[in-house]
């Protein structure tokens, strides 16, 4: 009985220590990616004044929920801040080229870069497009990926200048 009790204690405490450490590592990586997102938003200031629009529009992509969070407009580019929450962990990161932005004149903005980081179940990231000449009225966000399609028109209400 004594040996069983000692073995139980060893197993229990090693689980606590090992998984405790692993959880700390997970938490730290989440905090790091969160602060790098903030850094990125701050760095947009380099191109002059930044206009921020809060979008908060969701698209259901086969059960994964894509959220267009905010849109940042600078003199040089248009940046979409998005997040996607996934049903299951692992797998591929979100294919950014599936997202298109169309301005109020019906012109598609050229996409030129993107970045993303994992957030537990899903990811958050930024997709940069060309600058918008006419940031008035509304913007259309299109999702086109193989046979998947969605389109939402988002009225742009100014949120304030800079960050």
């Amino acid at each position, binding site marked *: 009985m004594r040996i069983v009790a000692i073995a139980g204690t060893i197993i*229990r405490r090693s689980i606590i220590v090992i998984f405790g450490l692993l959880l700390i590592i997970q938490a730290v990586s989440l905090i790091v990616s969160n602060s790098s997102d903030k850094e990125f938003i701050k760095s947009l200031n380099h191109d002059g004044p930044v206009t921020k629009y809060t979008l908060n529009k969701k698209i259901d992509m086969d059960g994964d929920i894509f959220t267009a969070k905010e849109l940042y407009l600078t003199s040089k580019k248009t940046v979409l801040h998005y997040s996607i929450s996934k049903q299951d962990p*692992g797998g591929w990161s979100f294919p950014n080229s599936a997202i298109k932005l169309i301005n109020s004149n019906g012109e598609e903005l050229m996409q030129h870069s993107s970045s993303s980081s994992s957030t537990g179940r899903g990811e958050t990231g930024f997709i940069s497009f060309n600058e918008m000449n006419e940031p008035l009225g509304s913007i259309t966000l299109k999702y086109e*990926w193989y046979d998947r399609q969605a389109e939402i028109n988002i009225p742009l209400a100014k949120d304030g200048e800079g960050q």
Partner: protein
Amino acid sequence: MSKKTVILIVEWCIAILFVFLFFRGYNPYMGSLTPTKAHELSERSYHYGPSKIVKVVPFGGNTTVYLGVYKEWFSSDTVIKRGLGWHPGGGVGGVWIDSSKPLTYSWSVSERDKKLTLAQFYGYVSDPEITTVVLYTETDSVDNKEARTLSTMSQEINEDRMFLFIWNDKDLNSHWKSIQGLDQEGKVVYEEKFN
């Protein structure tokens, strides 16, 4: 209940909670238990498919390829075993089947480790006359780097219309010469030369 028992129960609760919390979050280390599960995860997370699997091709124990068709696309989704689990490994995205062409093909070469460079040449045959597909390659000779050896790989086409040539290209450095489609009599009805 003695104080010892209370501590014991509390410790067990913490241990179980930690394990639960850990597996709830994203785990790059674990992977899927079976290759099929990894394939399904691969397509689901890529927002493609689910494709109709026409062939499952295991290669060397640590690789499994799922040849599939989804609407007007075909793919060669490859999953890899690393450690205990299976992980998505590429080729998930569909290639559009150009039905105006006798056959549509795609390829991939990925250097996996020091011993394995996985080469894949795969495609979909639209022309019903084609019953065999032949891939011609030239490989570097072992003793003479200048001389090249011609080699051929062939595969019969059945109702699923798909083919896959898969091999370890390490030390071979294959140069792809041409792809041919042969009819029942062995006559070349389609040929495309590379380079």
